[in-house]
């Protein structure tokens, strides 16, 4: 069992941030100098003075009155634990960041943080409004990178974040960094995902249990996500997107940046395409990420032994790769009957070569995954 625990000063800082929620909301405008990560560099007194001068004394007195027992009890009640920058569990990656959180409140397995090096984790970010292409790539990257032994860090938001977590849960370890208390499932429709991550991964936050999210807490948690991992990958993002803030923060820390290329006509891929143009690492699959982080060829994605495909399956797969997406079109291109095409598509889907949307259209997956050789 890993030793958890934080010193009382660091814990009080977390509770102070939660108490300052509405005050910081008013001050943090997103302009240079007034961004929440920049505000969070300030000491307790400076921060309170800058955001809530009228109630500064009361607030500080109230926070100072919080006893260590009381704070630990609140953590225990919420089934959470904490670590702080003075403890061993605190990730090395965060220590060198100037605006690093004092304490981290976690829910789930603390062992994920134990000995976590920057190059043992990768952050996947992207738009909430993602296309099916983006979601598929995020899921695949999450799964393959987690299988390769990396910890996949993301923000549990809709779209790309959620897909990256789901993929990673399928393959290995994942950390969700939240902009609210770690015991608060936000967004609430991701409650099931949150529970899964609590059970088999880790949910982290710098805010205490029960803290509600504010606009400013999201850029603030983005700085933790950017700092935790050696590389940050954006899958899909429009030109003005919160995901690009994370990329900026990661660049400031000197972390590697990766971007998944998309069609130049797609608005959802405008962000990553622009980053690629300015020199970000091209991410086509998990192997690209491993090569960039660990040096080319240092770790290989194990290619699953793919079973030999029959001629029908090969023809159908080729038709999909050539851009057809419906069963009708595939049947016409390959010249197979409708029933054999349907059977072939189902088998290819089971083998992991294809995915089928809720609309019944097929697309090629990123990497061929496992399949039964009996097919």
């Amino acid at each position, binding site marked *: 069992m890993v030793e958890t625990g934080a010193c009382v000063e660091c814990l009080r800082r977390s509770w102070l941030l939660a108490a300052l929620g509405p005050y910081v909301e008013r001050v943090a405008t997103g302009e240079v100098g007034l961004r929440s990560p920049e505000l969070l560099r300030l000491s307790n007194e400076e921060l309170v003075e800058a955001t809530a001068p009228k109630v500064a004394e009361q607030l500080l007195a109230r926070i100072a009155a919080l006893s260590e027992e009381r704070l630990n009890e609140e953590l225990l009640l919420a089934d959470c634990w904490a670590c702080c920058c003075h403890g061993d569990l605190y990730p090395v990656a965060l220590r060198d960041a100037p605006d690093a959180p004092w304490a981290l409140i976690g829910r789930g397995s603390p062992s994920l943080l134990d000995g976590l090096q920057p190059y043992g984790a990768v952050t996947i970010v992207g*738009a909430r*409004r*993602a*296309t*099916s292409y983006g979601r598929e790539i995020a899921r695949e990257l999450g799964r393959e990178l987690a299988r390769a032994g990396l910890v996949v860090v993301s923000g549990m938001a809709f779209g790309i974040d959620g897909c990256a977590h789901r993929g990673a849960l399928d393959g290995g370890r994942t950390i969700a960094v939240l902009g609210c208390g770690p015991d608060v499932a936000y967004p609430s429709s991701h409650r099931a995902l949150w529970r899964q991550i609590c059970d088999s991964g880790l949910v982290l936050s710098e805010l205490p249990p029960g803290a509600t999210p504010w606009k400013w807490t999201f850029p603030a948690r983005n700085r933790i996500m950017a700092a935790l991992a050696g590389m940050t990958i954006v899958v899909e993002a429009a030109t003005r997107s919160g995901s690009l803030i994370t990329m900026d923060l990661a660049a400031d820390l000197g972390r590697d940046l990766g971007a998944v290329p998309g*069609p130049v*006509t797609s*608005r*959802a891929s405008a962000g990553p395409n622009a980053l690629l143009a300015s020199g970000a690492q091209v991410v086509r699959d998990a192997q690209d990420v491993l090569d960039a982080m660990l040096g080319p060829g240092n770790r290989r994605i194990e290619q699953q032994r793919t079973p030999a495909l029959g001629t029908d399956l090969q023809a159908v797969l080729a038709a999909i790769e050539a851009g057809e*997406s*419906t*069963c*009708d*079109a595939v*049947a*016409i291109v390959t010249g197979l*009957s*409708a*029933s*054999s*095409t*349907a*059977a*072939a*598509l*189902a*088998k290819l*889907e*089971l083998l992991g070569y294809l995915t*089928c*949307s*809720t*609309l*019944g*259209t097929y697309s090629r997956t990123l990497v061929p995954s496992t399949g*039964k050789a*009996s097919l």
Partner: protein
Amino acid sequence: MPKILFLRVTRESKPPSVPTVLATARTFTLDGISARPVRVEVDVHRGLPNFTIVGLPDAAVREARERVRAALVNCGFEFPLRRIVVNLAPASLRKAGPGMDLAIAAALLSASEQLQWEGLANAALVGELALDGSTRPVHGALAMAEVARESGAETIVLPAENGPEAALVEGIDVVPVEALGQLLGLADGDWSSPRPEPLPLLPSVSPGAPDLADLRGQPHLRHALEVAAAGGHSLMMVGPPGAGKSLAASRLPSILPPLAPSEALEVARIASACGRLGTGLPGGRPFRAPHHTISAAGLVGGGQAIRAGEVTHAHRGVLFLDELCEFRRDALEALRAPLESGEVAIARVGGQRSLPCRFMLVAAANPCPCGRGEADPDCSCSPYEVQRYQGKLSGALADRIDVLAAVRQPSAADIGGPPGESSAAVRERVCAARERQEHRLGAGRCNAEMTPAEARGCALSEGAALLLADLYARQRLSGRAHDRALRLAQTLTDLAGLSEIGDEQMAQALQMRRRDRG
């Protein structure tokens, strides 16, 4: 005699010792699509001339006063200038429609001793009266004749136009009349009419009807239609506008097996109650395609006087919902229970009514609000809009959809190509597959109606079981989705004429099944 004196005399007179109800007659009112027996009681006694109808009549029944009065006078009868009270029993049942005119007139004639007809007690009378005394057809004569027989009437007298449909009911004398005056001849026994010829069963496919051959170059869509028809599975088609979704749906009735005589009678009963019955019993299956602005009550039925909804009109046929995502949410929600149970239950103050609605659901939708689909570079929808739109597809009703077919725009070569297989050829295979199902499940049942226990009892080959288990483990299928795949695979097996589900059929079923969200 001065009026005031007349009144005083009435007041002073003793209550009569004889019953005041002087005449009764049997008739029916239409409640939804079923007929309910009504007894018309007419009381004619001294008093200020007046004509009242009581017993929860609607406006059309109340207006019978004027029609009956004019018809009586114009047929040469005398309209009694007395206090006339017509009671429609049971008094708690709402009476609707003009079909009670004939019975009211007959009872009134009998009460005023202008008609002496001993058979009146054993006869049921139905019909609307014109002012000149001729009869006009009513809705629901078929159901009325059936209820008349069940309630023990020997004869049903009804307008000549309704004769053929009433003649479908055996065990009751059907007497079509053209005018009120013919009742006299009927009473005296010096006039009778031959039993009308019952309605003929129309052929299931009329020449020139839409044929599946029109669907060109879409092998998968054709296959999906065939499978859906063979197993009675509900079908959803998703594709861009103009890809042939509506065309395909309208061809579906032509490949369904023809109606069995008992089913044709059910369909005819509904059509008759709604006044849609033409010159013959429908042999082909109904096809209903309501517009997407339809209300929940319009779809499943409702209203104070209960009216059958589109689902009931589509009984034993096809209900096609084009632009599924544009339908009102409450309307789609209202469809769920009827789809499951095969009948619509409508609760009203007077009790619960149920209307039959065993239909095949066919839905069509565009892939995104603009219709082009995400893959099309011209698609102007934002990913969020697309997500919301597709959320509608996977929510609400989608749970009840078995087969999903992605439809693509046919190419110019496809459209110019040779016509597809004709409906007749496909229908032959569908009928053969249905026969196997009836042999296994019992008459009138199809694979889509298999209970979970029956679905899990299907014979599976080893390969098919392996495929299903593989998918089940991989995609965390729900039990419902698991059974749905089995039902589909069984239909494919029936179409192929095999005795157990092979892995080829299972793979096809897994491809055709509706996908869950995610």
